[in-house]
């Protein structure tokens, strides 16, 4: 009886599997590693970095000879339509389960993030922890930077973002965090702004890039593959206007990776991906940018700081010290009819004996404390007061500490925002 049952189940499984016509093979899938979204008068432009199995990928940053991605771009009236075009042109089903990063162009409208990222929310393969960043200009420009290191092309991208975050130089931003921030009253969020810089190895100068990224081969004899010579010519970049006219070109090249060193005597113009500022979004619109120091202040106030370098002046000398967060406590208290966002920051100054003997300990602590406080105040002044964005989760704190107040003013959070003050205290310890 037992064996009969087992045979029955096994045969049923075999029959069902044999008859299954809807299975999608791995070779029929296009693995998307990075998605760029731009918006223009023509519609939404989607740029995808897709894994190319024929390329082995590089083990080091100085060997860009084996690119394992290609870039495809399409424009359509909606995001879903643009993705569908990419899928049709590649002749493969898009798989976004390996997507590492979503780059939003600076012109993208953020008034309806559910609609903008609805494709990802609906898709069961999507990883909620995918990084969401904003491009300094267009997302397409960022997508064309081929960081061909490791098995996954855009792995280095997220490593760069994670490193900036670990050093406190940018804000934490993944899809879950971004969607929750945009759902809060005031629809506010802060995104890292990614920009591309070109580093010429011959003159050792760093030049900001504007417009299209440059592509060139290195002296080792590697040649840039053109779209005409590429055997995978079925992948095309196309833009469709309302009338339906299309132009297509393919971009695929032996692009050097960003962020690393270069071979001696090489003429490669390397591209660097940098994050030097953060975009502040309020009311579903891009309000402005905050610089690196203000971003650090924001991280201190929201308890996202782990460790960073603080530049300060002590005894007339400029000094940079590594500062590690010991604890950050913030709460909302009522004081004289106003709400005070009170933050107590305890930090440990990591230094060595050389610095200690050069500077007075108390003055060092005082100057570091003053600098951190300045950064916090600058962040609050610019992001909260000037741009009117609730980047400090004040709404969540009001919901927690004063739920009835939140319910009374949930439809008009701006009124509550006007009675919020910031009070920061910093205590330093030297280790």
């Amino acid at each position: 009886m037992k064996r009969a049952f087992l045979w029955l189940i096994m045969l049923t499984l075999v029959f069902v599997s044999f008859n299954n016509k809807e299975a999608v093979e791995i070779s029929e899938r296009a693995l998307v590693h990075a998605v760029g979204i731009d918006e223009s008068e023509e519609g939404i432009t989607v740029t995808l970095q897709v894994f190319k199995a024929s390329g082995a990928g590089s083990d080091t940053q100085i060997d860009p000879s084996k690119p394992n991605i290609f870039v495809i771009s399409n424009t359509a009236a909606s995001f879903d339509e643009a993705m569908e075009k990419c899928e049709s042109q590649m002749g493969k089903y898009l798989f976004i389960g390996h997507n590492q990063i979503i780059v939003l162009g600076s012109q993208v409208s953020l008034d309806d993030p559910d609609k903008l990222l609805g494709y990802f929310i609906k898709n069961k393969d999507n990883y909620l922890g995918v990084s969401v960043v904003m491009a300094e200009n267009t997302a397409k420009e960022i997508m064309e930077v081929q960081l061909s290191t490791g098995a996954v092309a855009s792995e280095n991208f997220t490593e760069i973002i994670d490193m900036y975050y670990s050093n406190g130089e940018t804000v934490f931003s993944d899809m879950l965090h971004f969607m929750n921030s945009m759902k809060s009253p005031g629809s506010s969020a802060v995104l890292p702004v990614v920009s591309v810089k070109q580093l010429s190895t011959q003159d050792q100068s760093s030049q900001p890039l504007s417009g299209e990224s440059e592509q060139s081969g290195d002296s080792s004899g590697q040649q840039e593959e053109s779209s005409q010579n590429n055997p995978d010519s079925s992948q095309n970049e196309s833009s469709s206007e309302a009338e339906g006219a299309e132009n297509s070109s393919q971009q695929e090249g032996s692009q050097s990776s960003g962020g690393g060193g270069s071979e001696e005597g090489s003429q490669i113009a390397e591209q660097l991906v940098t994050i030097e500022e953060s975009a502040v979004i309020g009311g579903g619109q891009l309000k402005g940018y905050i610089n690196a120091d203000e971003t650090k202040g924001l991280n201190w106030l929201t308890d996202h700081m782990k460790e960073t370098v603080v530049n300060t002046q002590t005894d007339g000398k400029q000094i940079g010290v590594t500062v590690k967060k010991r604890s950050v406590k913030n709460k909302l208290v009522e004081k004289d009819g106003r709400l005070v966002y009170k933050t107590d920051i305890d930090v440990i100054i990591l230094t060595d004996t050389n610095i200690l003997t050069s500077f007075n300990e108390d003055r060092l602590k005082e100057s570091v404390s003053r600098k951190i406080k300045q950064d916090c105040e600058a962040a609050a002044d610019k992001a909260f007061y000037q741009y009117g964005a609730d980047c400090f989760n004040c709404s969540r704190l009001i919901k927690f500490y004063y739920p009835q107040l939140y319910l009374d003013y949930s439809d008009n959070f701006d009124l509550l925002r006007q009675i919020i003050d910031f009070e920061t205290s910093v205590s330093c310890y030297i280790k």
Partner: protein
Amino acid sequence: MKKITPVQMVSILICCLFYTLMTYIPPQNDNAVLLLCSKLLTLGIQCVLLIPLIKLYAKTNGKGIIETAFAKSRTAGCAAAVIYLLFSIFILFITIGDFAFFLRYSFASTYSEWSVVLVFSLASVYVASMGVSSGARTAVVTAFITVAGTLLVITGFKGVIDFRALNLAAENRGEMLADGILSSFSRSDELVLLALLLPYLKSKPGKTVYSYIAAKAVLSTVIIIAIAVILGDFAIDTKLPFFALSAYSKNRIFERFDAFFLMFWVMCALIKASVALICISDCFRFLFPKTDKKLWLFLPAFFCGSADIILIMLDKWEVISYKAFSNILIVILVAALPLAVMLFRTRYTRSKTGGTK
């Protein structure tokens, strides 16, 4: 009849609980703190409601509700058997249907609904035919690994976890609390299975029941708080918050636990369905003692599976809220009926040894 230990019984119930928790869809206006409070209040009420069941076990020395009712009269016994039979069939119908629906929806299954229902039903019948002790041994392993997996998921989140995401900013708190209690009751159908499985328990019904209630309180609290604190408002946008939570978790070894939990969700579904089939066959055994047990395993699986396939293929599965009225039935089957049967004067309840010589 092979008996099962208290640990095995608790494990079976935890598997049934996980199956329900993993496919819980929060309402749009849900508040995590109120949901948690309603959950804990429900468990408190259930602690009281389960007292007659425990007392009945002790008084009849492990005889079940139906057997004790039959000792009173055939009419009472048949009535009790039919009521429990119908509800057990309802549990089986919901279990198979939910399994097929959510598997197809959540995991981009390329298999058709009828194939999923067919294979799942066959597997459930097979496990049920092995007896409750086999399923109970599997349930211990499944429950342990699922709990361990859940704890591992909770450790895999980067970014700041702020417990101040839990708040009481909700309109009509009393109404939401009451709705939460009713809703929690309607998701507690495993208590009816407990009522029918108690005759299989070796000993210590009180400790077993309250151990399960305590485990349910801890697991529900942990999962609700994790979803509220980590997913936040996004939990309402996702269809299945538990799987969204497991998909978001990442540590050095694993990235995304949703595939891991799919396997254990299937195991939990299988255990729940097979236990429901065992309860159904037991009810039929009382009503038709001379018929073959295997017939009563196949027939309910066939009819429930067929009904589920038709409803899912016609896209009617989510149209009717099948569980909306089950809260009252659960209270009746778990508390009222056992209390009534306990008050019967039968040879089991009259004797101090529960009718044994």
